[in-house]
């Protein structure tokens, strides 16, 4: 068969498969991310239906997926919000980072995977999935709850931390020496500060350039700009994802809102490809041996997120029930954790890291929202009894 024909057939089959899985997830009321990962596992090496030729095509699609995921994440926030959130919630943010990076890092060190793997695993267990958490908050009607601003500002803090963490990780994965690694990190920090400053002071100039009454022009300019900055960031070893995130932050207001609406379908397509690609790279037969470990890690990091939520919400003057809800809302892990694990897998840090991260995210992306749904009535009745 012709090469193009095979690529279309395989890619088409993957997308149709994802569509069906997405419909199932929708009916079950869970995030589709775990199902996409499972699909990737099934199509990959050692899976039930390995893909022959289109893996390279899918890998480029996956890279674009990361850029779009981070770009739309950046579009959700504006620079003002980031700065306010940093000022007001630094303590809670740091507690979140220490408590939740520790399980992954300690696990990697205990397994003897070395310091680079420890840094990568720290990221895998640290970041809450802002996408899944936002959906949980809105599905359960928690958006108006008084602990929600605390949860949201923790998410903002985590995302900003990523802007520093990802370049550090990229430098370590590239095996840079301490000196050149430090230079990279310095460049990253400088870039982040410059972009924040530019966005705060001169955001309207960037917006004047990008802004257009025509959707097509707007889409081309935003995606083009994000890919350009991502490319430059990658070249500087700062990580393409961070570049795209910063472009998103620089755009704000109505423009950001319009761009988000335009980008969402594109992002959903490529992000799904990204999750599949991660699954493709993971050999499902390797998951079995690490499944127990992943479950243990999941339980530990659920507890650390619950503690984080309780700590942050108590500081904000929230009562017991709200503290519990804040912790539960923070449990889901998803896109960021896979982005981090994907970087580590691509650099060949440790053969078991991919399967462990996949199993871990599978558990928490599926169980996080479910836990919130199940626990909600319990918390309410306990709170009622305490009040009555």
């Amino acid at each position, binding site marked *: 068969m012709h090469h193009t024909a095979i690529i279309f057939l395989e890619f088409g089959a993957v997308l149709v498969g994802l569509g069906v899985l997405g419909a199932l997830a929708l009916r079950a009321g869970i995030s589709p991310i775990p199902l996409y990962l499972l699909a990737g596992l099934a199509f990959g090496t050692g899976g039930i239906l390995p893909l022959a030729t289109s893996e390279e095509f899918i890998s480029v699609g996956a890279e674009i997926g990361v850029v779009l995921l981070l770009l739309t994440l950046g579009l*959700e*926030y504006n620079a003002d*919000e980031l700065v*306010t*959130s940093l000022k007001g919630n630094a303590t809670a943010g740091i507690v979140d980072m220490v408590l939740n990076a520790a399980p992954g890092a300690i696990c990697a060190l205990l397994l003897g995977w070395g310091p680079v793997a420890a840094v990568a695993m720290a990221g895998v267990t640290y970041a809450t999935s*802002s996408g899944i958490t*936002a959906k949980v908050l809105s599905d359960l*009607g*928690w*958006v*108006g*709850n*008084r*602990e*929600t*601003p605390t949860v*949201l*500002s923790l*998410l*903002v803090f985590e995302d900003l931390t990523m802007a520093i963490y990802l370049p550090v990780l990229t430098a370590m994965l590239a095996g840079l020496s301490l000196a050149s690694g430090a230079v990279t990190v310095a460049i990253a920090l400088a870039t982040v500060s410059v972009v924040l400053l530019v966005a705060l002071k001169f955001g309207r100039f960037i917006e004047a350039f990008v802004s257009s009454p025509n959707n097509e022009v707007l889409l081309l300019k935003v995606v083009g700009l994000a890919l350009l900055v991502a490319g430059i960031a990658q070249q500087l070893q700062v990580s393409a994802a961070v570049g795209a995130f910063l472009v998103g932050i620089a755009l704000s207001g109505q423009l950001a*809102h319009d761009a988000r609406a335009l980008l969402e379908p594109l992002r959903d397509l490529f992000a799904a490809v990204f999750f599949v690609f991660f699954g493709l790279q993971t050999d499902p037969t390797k998951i079995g041996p690490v499944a127990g470990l992943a479950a243990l890690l999941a339980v530990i990091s659920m507890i650390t997120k619950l503690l984080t939520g309780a700590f942050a919400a108590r500081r904000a003057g*929230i*009562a017991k*029930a*709200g503290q519990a*809800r804040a912790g539960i809302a923070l449990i889901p892990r998803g896109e960021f954790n896979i982005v981090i694990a994907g970087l580590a897998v691509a650099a060949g840090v440790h053969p078991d890291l991919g399967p462990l991260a996949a199993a871990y995210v599978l558990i928490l992306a599926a169980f996080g929202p479910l836990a919130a749904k199940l626990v909600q009535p319990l918390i*309410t009745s306990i*709170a*009622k009894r*305490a*009040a*009555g």
Partner: protein
Amino acid sequence: MGRSVDVEQTALPGIGLRHEFTTQSGKRVGVISHRTGRRDLVIYDREDPDRVCETVKLNDEEAEALVELLGAPRIVQRLNQLHQQVEGLVSLQLPIPPGSPYVDRPMGDARVRTRTNASIVAVVRAGRVSASPGPDFVLAANDTVVVVGSADSTAEVADILAHG
């Protein structure tokens, strides 16, 4: 005027803004303004004051309808205050009787402003206020027209609306 309401504003990063206040009867209510334009009316639980027990999602039209329902008596009340505050300025609420010549006709036909120098600032229909109606606004029987002007001119408007 009663005591002013203490409205608390909280930013919801990535979502929008939340405004909330406690009513005199002790209920806490709030409005979440999403960036997408959606508005949620939320009511907090008495036993667990951090939790929203009822969320009412409102689209643009619904939010506007709610504002009009809640705002209708307020506008008239404010006009009455204005009337007391500014000497010589009168605001009147004039019913359109079913026999009025302007029933089912655009308001511009009455040429109220040219003939009397008074202004029609609002029309109240079934509890809903249309503020600053244009000349093409079609009047209906039992509408209440709110006019502002001098004592003489507003009296003339009453006469025009009743008898043409």
